């Protein structure tokens, strides 16, 4: 059936996801060759083949750079990109607001307080390299627990209450972080905090990969298992309730899921902006709003996007590293503006 329906064209989901997966795999291999020390693709492939077969690369320098330094970072970019994108899609459905992002519930600003405490005051220093991650995760969970508690005490998790409580609590937590940085008066600490708040994968190690992979896989599995309820919730709480969806329980589930997922991701990557806001919208434009289509496309698309963002952060002004939010903001803002124009076109295009 052919209709003149601008903005309504759909890309078939399965071929799109397959294409994105192939692109992501190729990109991952290529990106292993890119960095402050450019390597050859064939050298990278040699190391990967040797490592995946259980051995080590023939060239120890290549082996160290590819497997120990870059591979965990590339994997983390993929996992964090996928995780933030599905968290954003889930959050936009939970609060029914296209401007919602994964950090709406105060996760990142809470994590910021935890990270700042670690960097500035040396809290948790007994945990060594894990201090920052645990500090951030703790801060994130405390912040979302507060937002959750306040929302529930005031009558339940409704979109407006979540948005307002989240925004207000984020502002309060940011103030605490700012005070701590100001109080420390240590320029190096200030720089570390700023770098962390803007997001980076530069500290990625193999040990961080597994927990993040588990968190993102679980989240994808749960959300895909609830896909038709998410569709109903996106249409409105009354519609969802009249279609037999237990709205209050679903909202609490989504809140807890997103909080833990984003808490884990923020703990290893800091606050990477724009990915969780823009990628779900791009996915919806390509495949429509049904969650069983949006979630896989957003996950793979977000992984691919953040992979290249991280490459740009590594190589743009090497040997310096750029915080990831700087890159996602520079890329994300024009993309989002284009998208707004396109959505406007979609909304006004129907009446002709």
């Amino acid at each position, binding site marked *: 059936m052919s209709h003149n329906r601008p903005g309504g064209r759909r890309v078939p989901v399965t071929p799109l996801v397959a294409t994105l997966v192939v692109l992501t795999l190729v990109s991952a291999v290529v990106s292993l060759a890119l960095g402050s020390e450019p390597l050859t693709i064939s050298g990278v492939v040699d190391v990967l083949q040797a490592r995946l077969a259980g051995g080590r690369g023939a060239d120890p320098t290549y082996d160290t750079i590819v497997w120990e330094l870059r591979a965990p970072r590339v994997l983390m970019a993929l996992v964090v990109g996928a995780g933030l994108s599905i968290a954003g899609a889930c959050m936009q459905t939970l609060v029914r607001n296209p401007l919602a992002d994964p950090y709406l519930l105060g996760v990142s600003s809470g994590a910021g307080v935890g990270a700042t405490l670690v960097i500035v005051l040396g809290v948790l220093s007994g945990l060594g390299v894990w201090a920052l991650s645990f500090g951030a995760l703790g801060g994130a969970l405390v912040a979302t627990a507060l937002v959750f508690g306040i929302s529930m005490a005031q009558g339940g998790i409704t979109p407006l209450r979540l948005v307002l409580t989240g925004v207000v609590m984020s502002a309060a937590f940011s103030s605490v972080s700012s005070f701590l940085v100001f109080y420390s008066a240590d320029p190096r600490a200030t720089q570390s905090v700023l770098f962390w708040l803007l997001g980076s994968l530069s500290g990625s190690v193999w040990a961080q990969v597994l927990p993040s992979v588990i968190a993102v896989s679980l989240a994808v599995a749960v959300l895909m298992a609830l896909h038709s309820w998410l569709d109903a919730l996106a249409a*409105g709480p009354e*519609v969802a309730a009249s*279609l037999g*969806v237990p709205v209050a329980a679903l909202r609490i589930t989504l809140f807890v899921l997103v909080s833990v997922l984003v808490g884990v991701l923020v703990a290893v990557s800091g606050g990477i902006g724009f990915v969780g806001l823009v990628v779900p919208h791009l996915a919806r434009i390509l495949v429509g709003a*049904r969650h069983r289509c949006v979630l896989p496309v957003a996950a793979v698309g977000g992984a691919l996007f953040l992979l290249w963002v991280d490459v740009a952060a590594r190589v743009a002004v090497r040997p310096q590293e750029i915080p990831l939010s700087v890159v996602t903001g520079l890329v994300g803002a024009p993309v989002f503006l284009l998208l707004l124009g396109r959505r406007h076109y979609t909304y006004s295009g129907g009446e002709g």
Partner: protein
Amino acid sequence: MSHLSSRGLAAAVGGHTIVSGVDLDVPRGSMFALVGRNGSGKSTLVRALVGLRPPAAGSVAIDGVDLRTLTPRQRATRVAYVPQEDGPPEDLLVGEMVAMGRIPHRQPWAVDAKGESPLVMEALELVGMADKVDRPCQHLSGGERRRVLLARGIAQGADLLVLDEPTNHLDVHHQIQLLETLRALGCTVIAAVHDLQLAAAHFDAVAVLHAGAVHAVGRPADVLTPATVHDVFDVPATQLTDPATGRVHLVLGPGAPVPAPRKVPA
């Protein structure tokens, strides 16, 4: 046994009781209208009747089963609710929107079962929107959107349909067509309606809400009398009966001191 009945039902919004002491009995297969002025609590009562809000007092039963004893999914297979308006336009096609009506019939992880698309097409044909199954919902007019929402309610497959202002935003052709579609479905229909003439001519029974209670309930000819219309709406009215069809028609005005509150969104 009545298909839907309520006893001592009270419905509240934000702790304020809007209507109370509502005793209704809606026979299976009948069409039942709720009328009343703006703010009389029609929409609030509708939400309580379908279990979207727990009653502040009293109870609602479908086929004698108290709504509160049903799980949300069990409830959704027995009663379908068609709201006045959905949220903002979404990137859903008409067919996808209507297919959401099948959600209560499958697990949340299941994808559309094979038998669903005929049901969706059938519902769309009933509302005259089958040719627009591939249209994005945001390209529909207000009236088309209303008919798609009705199709979603029909696709839900419940034999009790509860509608909030189903004829709003519809031109007179589509108003009549929609009411005749509802009649042809053979379901039990409960609808909040603003248009007294439609309520009089197309429904088997009418309940008039006024001052937080059911002011009158019964057959349209017995309820929508000049006295009641004047008491509740403050509008002079004349009741006529079509000798050919036996349907009751209301003539409102002329010279009404207050215009009839028609077509004003509640």
